């Protein structure tokens, strides 16, 4: 009984229950109303209402909205920090908590869970694709699964980006917390029902078959699952916008004394640039998804190419692509900018050398973010958009190579002449550099129109973006997890297992993406459940599947390592990496409000090897630590 009560006091359980209740409520509401009004039943409208109420109820039940609702009726609330008093301390990780570190960890765990869901989907459809002919899936199922794989993985990345931003940014800039702790909790908690909706979309009404891009007219004719997917995607946007605003404000107003913008740890620049994109571009994809939803529900013909009567202009499917890519191109830089920030952050620590060209790296992040807004149509070279647009977008696209190149060359400069050490985080940093390099370099060939005419919608693109996303996000994220693991748990991870993870994952990934690119050049289309035998594709497909399995094992090893080491491994030294960053000068795990007193920044962040230099001036830590 006690445990049951405890279970139901957990925010996550309440959110899920709330979501189920809300779903039933919303569905029933529409069903009953339509019945009462004598309209014919519309499962789609009922599900949409169910989905919207499910999100609202999940938030209400979890308790994220409580404070705001109280404000609305004029009650003051206090911002409670610290572990709950009447419950075990661990419960705070499963409920609404306003501490940025707790939220960061919640994001991180959610990201890994969602990554595993998306990964299992990948394994399922990879097994299907190992050989020509249909093995064990139906075409419909295949389409649903790969579409879900795409969007769920992207949700996972966004959660991971949130994890790094939330956990690290306030700590690195010496703030006690984020600027808006309640909004911060809201951003995370609205991501939960949105992820549930995305998963649910697979199982309801025949799934959906549009891929993660949801191009109309297919997405308008598609089965019911499409609608739930659109809503899940849409709701996720709230999380992005809210957390981006939070990070921007935090960085701009809450830095420690003496921390000028160019003295921030470099990761903060990555996070800031990514947030600039997230805060703005997300609106346009929201609009595009909303348009699809309303077209499905109310028949608003934004993208319907048939004109109802002569003289009235018809809709245009290509408009959707513009709106969609205006967000979805910049968002790929949201995926990588924090990750590249992690690379820049860790290289000096493990190279024992200053970061080469700090300002250039910092500003290149901003440049990537800004130029990234001007290239979206490179996804549409073959779409039939106005032809005169192709050449300008070709130029803008290849220009992104320059700020990205600056990062690579500066990383080389950082390693050059250093004293490199290679614990697991550094291994993943190096792996990330190699993988992101091939991912990036396979971009310009897509950016030049004549070559893209062949490569578009082929597995070359699949290879390109897995390499950029693994190199720019997944590997740096893993590096970050290992690197800050002692900070989070106070204990060291198991080094041997970390190395094993690396040794399986990076070569496994290399194999996978090279094989995918080969397939694409040979003529393998994306998003097909089946391919013909005898095109020279069979063997390479088998390789992709095998490497996928290798990657899966590697990730399982990591998960085991993370879970087991928190119990068994020895307590970590306070600053195991010899870092100069402020968070490593404080005890692990971090105190509730990070630093007892605001520290002062007295030097540059990466002056490794400069005798007597200091980055931060910490007030003496209270005795007993």
């Amino acid at each position, binding site marked *: 009984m006690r445990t049951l009560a405890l279970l139901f006091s957990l925010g996550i359980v309440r959110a899920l229950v709330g979501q189920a209740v809300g779903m039933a409520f919303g569905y029933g509401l529409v069903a009953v109303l339509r019945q009462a009004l004598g309209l014919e039943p519309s499962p789609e409208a009922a599900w949409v209402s169910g989905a919207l109420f499910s999100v609202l109820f999940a938030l209400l039940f979890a308790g994220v909205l409580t404070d705001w609702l109280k404000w609305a009726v004029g009650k003051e609330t206090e911002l409670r920090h610290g572990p709950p008093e009447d419950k075990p301390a661990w419960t705070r990780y499963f409920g609404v908590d306003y501490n940025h570190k707790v939220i960061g960890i919640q994001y991180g765990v959610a990201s890994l869970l969602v990554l595993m869901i998306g990964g299992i989907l990948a394994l399922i459809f990879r097994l299907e694709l190992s050989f020509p002919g249909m093995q064990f899936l139906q075409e419909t199922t295949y389409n649903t699964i790969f579409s879900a794989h795409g969007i769920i993985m992207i949700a996972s990345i966004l959660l991971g980006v949130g994890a790094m931003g939330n956990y690290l940014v306030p700590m690195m800039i010496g703030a006690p917390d984020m600027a808006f702790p309640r909004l911060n909790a809201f951003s995370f908690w609205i991501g939960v029902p949105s992820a549930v909706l995305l998963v649910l979309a697979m199982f309801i009404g025949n799934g959906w078959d549009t891929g993660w891009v949801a191009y109309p007219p297919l997405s308008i004719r598609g089965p019911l699952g499409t609608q739930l997917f659109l809503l899940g995607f849409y709701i996720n946007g709230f999380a992005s916008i809210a957390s981006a605003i939070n990070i921007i404000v935090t960085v701009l107003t809450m830095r420690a004394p003496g921390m000028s913008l160019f003295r921030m740890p470099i990761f903060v620049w990555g996070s800031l640039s990514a947030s600039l994109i997230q805060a703005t571009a997300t609106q346009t994809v929201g609009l595009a998804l909303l348009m699809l939803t309303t077209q499905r529900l109310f028949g608003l013909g934004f993208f319907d190419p048939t004109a109802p009567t002569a003289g009235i202009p018809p809709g245009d499917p290509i408009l959707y692509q513009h709106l969609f890519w205006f967000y979805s191109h910049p968002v790929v830089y949201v995926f990588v900018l924090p990750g590249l920030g992690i690379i820049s952050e860790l290289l000096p620590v493990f190279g024992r050398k200053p970061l080469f060209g700090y300002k250039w790296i910092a500003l290149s992040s901003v440049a990537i973010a800004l130029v990234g807004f001007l290239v979206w149509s490179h996804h549409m070279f073959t779409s039939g958009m106005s032809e005169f647009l192709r050449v300008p977008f070709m130029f803008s696209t290849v220009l992104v190579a320059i700020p990205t190149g600056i990062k690579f060359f500066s990383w080389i400069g950082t390693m050059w002449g250093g004293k*490199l050490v290679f614990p697991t985080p550094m291994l993943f940093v190096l792996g990330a550099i190699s993988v992101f390099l091939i991912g990036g370099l396979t971009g310009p060939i897509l950016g030049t129109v004549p070559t893209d005419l062949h490569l578009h919608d082929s597995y070359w693109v699949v290879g390109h973006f897995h390499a950029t996303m693994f190199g720019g996000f997944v590997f740096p994220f893993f590096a970050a997890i290992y690197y800050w693991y002692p900070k989070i748990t106070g204990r060291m991870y198991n080094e041997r297992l970390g190395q094993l993870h690396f040794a399986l994952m990076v070569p496994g990934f290399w194999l996978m993406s090279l094989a995918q690119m*080969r397939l694409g050049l040979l003529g393998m289309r994306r998003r097909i459940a089946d391919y013909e035998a005898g095109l020279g594709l069979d063997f390479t497909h088998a390789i992709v599947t095998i490497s996928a399995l290798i990657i899966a094992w590697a990730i399982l090893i990591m998960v085991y390592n993370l879970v087991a080491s928190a119990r068994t491994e020895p307590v970590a030294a306070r600053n195991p990496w010899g870092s100069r960053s402020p968070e490593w000068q404080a005890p692990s795990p971090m105190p509730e409000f990070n630093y007892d007193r605001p520290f002062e920044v007295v030097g540059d962040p990466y002056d490794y090897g400069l005798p007597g230099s200091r980055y931060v001036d910490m007030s003496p830590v209270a005795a007993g630590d």
Partner: protein
Amino acid sequence: MKYRKHFTAIIVITPVVALLTYLVLNAIYKLPIAASEEAVIIEDMFQAHFILISALFALVMTFMFYSIFAFRRQPGDEEDGDHFHGNTVLEIVWTVVPLVIVLFFGYWGAVMLSDITAPEPDEMVVEVYGQQWSWYYIYPEMDDMRTSELVLPAGEQIRLEMTALDVLHSFWVPEFRVKQDLVPGQIHHLRITPTIPGEYRLRCAEICGVQHAYMLGDVIVLSPDEFEEWVEESELAGEPVPAPRTESSVAGTPAD
């Protein structure tokens, strides 16, 4: 200079690595045969890109692996690395050099694009219709003859006037290298000049629903003589019937 030895090593190693990378990539990256004039033109750009990829990959990776071996901390060493913060001249160099490279590629791409899309005066028009999940074609220059396989003469420029009847599809014959989406309600065109007689497969390259994987079509390229023969035969057979144009709910029918 302190690093002279190291730089010399890099200068020696990088080209070797680049060459090796290029060879490996060439073994992995294979294109189908180039069976259209456009494909032959674009081939150069593929090769140029592969060379660029190899060179830049080799450059960065050589530096990285060299650093890993040459600059790793020896056991027992507690020192930090050399202290330098950056070098503005270098930063400018590696901003400007890639800039020049990519601008060149942009320019080249633009020229090549206008090259492969330039109309020839006597191009032949074929209308292409895509629908879930099949293709058909209409030859307006041959009494609106309608076929279910695309038969083309070698050596002649064809303008494909394409539209979809339901959702997006995409016209792609990998051997021809070029691709164009079919959009319902709109007509878009694609120019190809097949060169090598033979049979090819047209593959729908835009997800279009359940059977997208199987939305294939046969493309037959005939020598000009054979093509004439085929035209006559088809007309004699009275076969391929004129297309029922009302089939689509879509506003646009291809212009001629």
